Every structure is written in C-alpha cells, then in structure tokens.
C-alpha cells in the first residue's frame, strides 16, 4: 500500500524554537506539498517541490522554509516557531498535474 508518512502525529514546541516536520513518500512521486489546515480556512499551501532541491512558495510561506535533498523526503522548517503557527500540518505527494494527492495523516503542532 502506497504511503505518505509524517514522522510525528503530535508535537508541542516552545515559542522561538526551530521546528522540523518530516515527510516521506514511497511512491516515487516528483511532486510534494506542505499544507496547513485550520478550522474554517480549509487547506492552505505553504510550499511545494517538483523535483529534488527544487521548491516554490505557496500561498502562505512566511515563517516557513523547506528542504528536499532526496526525492522521497520533504521537510518543513519553522525557523522560529510562533503561537500563530499552531495548526495541523499535512504533507502530500502527487504524480503530477491532473493527478490527485496522497496525503499523510498530519502533524498537529502546538506552539506554546
């Protein structure tokens, strides 16, 4: 069964900490995405990557960065966590345009 695996289900971090969220897919997909999900706001795109070492900003990239050193792994980095980054973070991968996403189970991050 194909999978997108997010390393942590729940995380609690302190304000100002550097936070790493990891995502691994086993489907050999070129494209990977990071979204955050907040009640009433749907899913908002933070960053995406269409190849190793290639990345593009999504709709809400401020306060975040990403890393894709290997095809199967896409990391989201919160450079200095703030309370307004408390959210559910969803990683997804896709074969390409006109193909749906496969999502991970999400990481619920709380910044205190």
């Amino acid at each position: 069964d194909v999978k997108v695996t997010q390393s942590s289900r729940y995380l609690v971090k302190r304000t100002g900490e550097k936070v790493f969220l990891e995502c691994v897919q086993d489907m050999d997909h070129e494209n990977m995405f990071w979204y955050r999900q907040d009640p009433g706001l749907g899913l908002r795109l933070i960053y995406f990557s269409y190849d190793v070492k290639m990345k593009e900003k999504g709709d809400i990239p401020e306060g975040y960065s990403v890393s894709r050193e290997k095809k199967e792994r896409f990391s989201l980095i919160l450079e200095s966590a703030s309370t307004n980054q408390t959210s559910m973070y969803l990683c997804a991968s896709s074969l390409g345009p006109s193909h749906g996403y496969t999502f991970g189970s999400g990481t619920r991050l709380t910044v205190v």
Partner: protein
Amino acid sequence: QQQVKQSPQSLIVQKGGISIINCAYENTAFDYFPWYQQFPGKGPALLIAIRPDVSEKKEGRFTISFNKSAKQFSLHIMDSQPGDSATYFCAASKGTNAGKSTFGDGTTLTVKP
C-alpha cells in the same frame, strides 16, 4: 481572493438521503477537479475527480456534476450512510506548477441514522 468557494459549511442528512455539496471556481485555467474525504484524525483521501471535458462522473454512490459555463461543480452522495460522515473538500488545479491544488474550505457532513 478565494479561488474555490465551497458550500455549505456543514450539512446534516438522514440515512438514505442525498447529500449535495457545491463548489464554484474563478480561474478558467483549472482543468482538474478532485474531491477529498477526511475522517477525524486522518489526512484527506482522494474520493473522486473530474476533468472539464465531461459533465458527470460516477463512482458507486458518489457522483460529480460539472458545469463548465457556470464554473461550478458538485458532489452528490446517494443513499448517504452514517459511515459517510466526514469532512469533504473540493479542489481545483491546472496543468502547471506541479499541479498544485487550491482547496475549498470544507463541508462537514453528518448522516443521522
């Protein structure tokens, strides 16, 4: 500017009834329209998708109706069951930028037994 507008925000349907969720989009360059189903504690899962060259697609009890001229598409769940209770997201993407999707805000469906 919200590119994909979804309604209603929440929906309660009796078991056996029809659930209808609507989405409207603005960007005529969108060419792929998926629907996702999300259960609590899980990530969204692809349910069904349509391309604009067809007006309807059916998979089991789930049907997408697509109106290109009105820039609207909808999800119909026939014979709704309590197990269908979940949050549903519509999305739209185009054939560029890795096919990144723009999502609606979601609809929470409750099917009462």
